[in-house]
Structure formats: C-alpha cells, structure tokens
C-alpha cells in the first residue's frame, strides 16, 4: 500500500486473472462497508476511467473499502475483447465481491455500475440476492437493442468521417469504436431489457442516476418500486463522459454525480 492507500493487484484464475485496484478507507472514519465499482465496456470504459478513479478516491476518503476492476478481456485484465461476454463478466463481478470480502470484514456491500456496468451489476445482484445491500445505477442501459444501434451509428459516423476510399469499411455489428465484440456478446447486448430484470431483484436500496436531459422513467420506477425498500431516481445535469466529442484528449469527470453518489452511499451506511 502507498501513501494514497491504493493497492493494484491481479486476482482470480491464473490464466484468466483480473486486474483490480483496492482503495483502503481513510483510517479516521473506517466503515464496515465495501463498494465494488462496475465499469462500462469498450470506448465508454476508456473515457470514464478517470471518473471511476475519482469516485473510488472520494468513497475511500469517506471510509469505504472500494474495489474497482477490469472485466475479463478489458483494460489490464487477461484476455481479448472478443473473449469477453455478459455471463463471464457477471462472474467477474461475483469474483470481485468475493475478493473484497477477503480483504475486509464487511457488514454491507454496495455495487455501483455505469452504463452496461449498471446492467451487469443488477445481474450480479440477482445472482447474489442476499449479498448486495445497495445498487447505484449510473445512466444504465435500459434497452440493449437501442444501445447497440447507437454505438454502431457512432462508429459508422466516425469511421466514414475519415475513410474516404472505401465507404463502410469496418462497419459491422461487431466492430465498435475501436473494439471487436463477439457475435454472442452483441446478441446478448441487444437482448438487454432492464425492466425484465426488476422482478428478479430484491434489495434494500436502489439509486438510479441519469445525467443528460433524461426524463424520469415512470416505467422504470414502477418496475423496480415493488422490489426495493428505498428507490430513488435522480437527474443530475452533467456531460456524458463516455461519449466521444470534439475534445479528443480531454478527460472529463462529472463531479456533481460523483459527489451525489458519495453522499448517498455515506447516508445509507451510517
């Protein structure tokens, strides 16, 4: 551990090991609460990475044990992107929860997921029904088909903006903004419907945060309402940090969202 109280390490099966970073709680207000952060994937992962660093830093300063990690085939973890898949990544979240419980004795466990990471977090919570106390869904993917179409459209627009000689070169359902997805992953992504997951979920607290002109989804609130003791849906105007914009190398961190997540989880863990 260093001065910043972080420890990078690999965990899991040796040939499929995952890269994780543990943020230890600051000593003066250590809680028995742990948080596993679930990144988005692909280009969205690259662009939101620093936001997760900042979120983890602030959560640990507020006394939480925090673990963020790369799914198999993403970031610094073993494997290639084509080898990744929804079921594999849900198991990875499960492994990360187990790893955090090995590091710290926890009374509470929370999951925070962004974009597809939010969907994976719900699926992991369904799998470990009694192990997860709270879920924070940050701009979750509600409709996988729409999400995939948006990604393909972004990819198409970007590639056609500079490839002049061969229109639609590299435009497929599986090549998306610099990453190769497998056909089975694309199929699974397109099949995502968040509403279908709600009746499988029983947990104390669910916080949904959306950050850009999103209307409060009554359907989502109704769907989850019966299965959570405390449900909150918050709109916080802030840039979509995961979307490529003109400022290619700008690392954006949406502080209002990060501060809100930290304050809400701190309240829930009092």
């Amino acid at each position, binding site marked *: 551990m260093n001065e910043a109280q972080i420890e*990078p390490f690999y965990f899991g099966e040796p040939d499929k090991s995952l*890269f994780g970073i543990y943020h230890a709680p600051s000593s003066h207000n250590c809680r028995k609460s742990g948080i596993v952060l679930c990144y988005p994937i692909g280009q969205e992962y690259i662009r939101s990475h620093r936001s997760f660093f900042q979120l983890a830093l602030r959560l640990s300063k507020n006394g939480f044990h925090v673990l963020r990690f790369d799914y198999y085939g993403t970031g610094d973890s073993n494997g290639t992107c084509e080898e990744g898949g929804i079921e594999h990544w849900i198991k990875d979240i499960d492994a990360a929860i187990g790893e955090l419980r090995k590091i710290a004795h926890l009374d509470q466990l929370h999951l925070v997921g962004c974009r597809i990471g939010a969907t994976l977090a719900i699926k992991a919570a369904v799998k470990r029904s009694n192990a997860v106390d709270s879920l924070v869904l940050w701009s979750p993917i509600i409709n996988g088909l729409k999400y995939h179409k948006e990604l393909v459209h972004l990819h198409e627009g970007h590639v056609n903006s500079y490839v002049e000689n061969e229109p639609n*070169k590299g435009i497929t359902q599986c090549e998306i903004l*610099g990453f*190769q997805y497998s056909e089975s992953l694309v199929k699974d992504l397109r099949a995502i419907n968040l509403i279908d997951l709600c009746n499988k979920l029983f947990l104390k607290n669910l916080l949904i945060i959306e950050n850009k002109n999103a209307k409060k989804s009554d359907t989502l609130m109704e769907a989850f309402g019966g299965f959570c003791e405390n449900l909150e849906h918050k709109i916080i105007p802030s840039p979509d940090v995961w979307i490529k914009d003109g400022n290619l*190398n700008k690392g954006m961190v949406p502080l209002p969202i990060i501060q809100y997540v930290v304050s809400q989880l701190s309240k829930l863990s009092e």
Partner: protein
Amino acid sequence: MKEKAVLFGRNRSIVGIISTSESKSNNGKLPSVILLNAGMLHRVGPNRLNVKIARALVKNGLMVLRFDFSGLGDTATRQDTLSFEEGNVQELKDAMDFLGSKSFIIIGICSGGRVAWETANMDSRIAGIIFVESMYIRTFYYHINRMLNLQKWYRLLSGQSYMWHLLKQQVLNILNKPSLENLSASTGLVDLGSSLPGTDSYRLTGKELRSSAKCGIQLLFVYRDGNETRYNYKIKRSDEKIIALELPENIDVEFVKEADHTFTLLSSQYLLLNIIDNWFRHRIYR
C-alpha cells in the same frame, strides 16, 4: 505471458503493469520497453492499444512496462512543485530506474512521444523511440504549407492561435519576474502547469534529428495515411503505399492506411502492430 501490477516512484504512487514472457528470456541482452500515456487516456491506451502492443512484444521475450503519469489513470497527482511536463520526464526516469535495464525503447502515442523525446535528450539509457501520431519534422515545405493554410491564418487573426497563448504567458512571466526554474529546461517554453503542451512542442528540427543519429538513437515515426502533407516529408506513392525518402540512417517513417489519430479501425490497429513488430525485427533483434 505474465503480468504483474506494480507501484513505484516517489511515495510508490505510480501505478504500472509489467508484462514478461514465461517461456522466453533474453538474459538482459535486449532493451526493455516502456509504453507511455496517450494524451489524457490511462495506460491501456486508446482502444486498448498499449495492452495489445505490450502483449505482442512480450512474445519475443521483451519485458514491457506500461504505467500512468501522475494525474492520469490510476496515479494520483504530484504534490511537489514540478510542472506536469517536468513530472512526466522525471517519472519516465523513475520507470527506467525501477526496471533497472541497461537500455530502453520508449513507445509514445501522441503526447507520449514528446515525453520520450525530452527524456532521451537527457538520459542516454533510451536507445530508441517509437512515435505514433506524435512528433513531426519541420522542413521548408512545412513553412510553405503553414503560410498557405487559411485555418491557421483564421486562428492567428482571431486570437485562437497557440502563439498568442505563449505570448501571454511570456508577458505574464516578465511581469511576475519568474525564476529560471519555471522554464522548461529542454524546450525553453514557459511552464504551462497541468495543461497539455501545444502542437509547437511536437516539432523536431533537422538539427535535432542529426543529433539523435550521432547518439545512435533509433527512431520510428508512424503516422496515419491521408495526413502526410502535414508532416512534410519527401515521400512517394507506390501501389497506394506511401514511402518516405532520403531519411537518415537511424530513422524509419511509416504510414498507416485508413487510420485516424487513435487507430479506431481494427484493420489500422493490425497494421500498426505489424509495423512495430517489423521495426523491432529490423532494428532491435538483429
């Protein structure tokens, strides 16, 4: 292949990943490789390119480190008085100290190439640099192109030019009577704090290149095709391929077809990996 997470540098605050081969060892005969941050992106690189490059090189027995400079990725910001640029150079030296190899090849995409170049000017352990969409060479044609570029004129006249920014900094520094320590030792540019340097610090002069040849540093420049006029090399097109001509002995230049700045298309990533692999075979494994 084996990968290990490491902490090094002052206060062990720099986060990195060392990749090594479990089956091949070069017994210290080959240089180690260090991959640097591209712009503000963390150490995995744009489209995970740094990871792909590292894992490809490890297959040939090389030891490869990728890490985050302070303030980027998983590494916290520096708490001392060094500027972002000075901190980058210091941390690349820290990385070389940490690995302990005799010589190094540094790979820098975009801004990473600039850090590699500045460090090589003051640290002889750097035996080679691969610049990917990074430094470019200023020639006579470069000035002509600039003179004829309407966008440049618009930026100059509307006050958006980087030159105005530099001028403003110079005036402010004169008014504040800055110490010499505030000036970047290698470029003479004013310390810009944590902001990334402007395009002016990505240019190399012929004199600088000749000096690198004298030191025996091997340099590979990789650019996207379609943007070659910006770099002003003497080139020729052959079978739709661009070939750079009349290069000094220690320099190679390659162009990647249908690539953008971050090699979004998988086909362009494949070509880039091939170019890097071929360069190592031609220049390093000999």
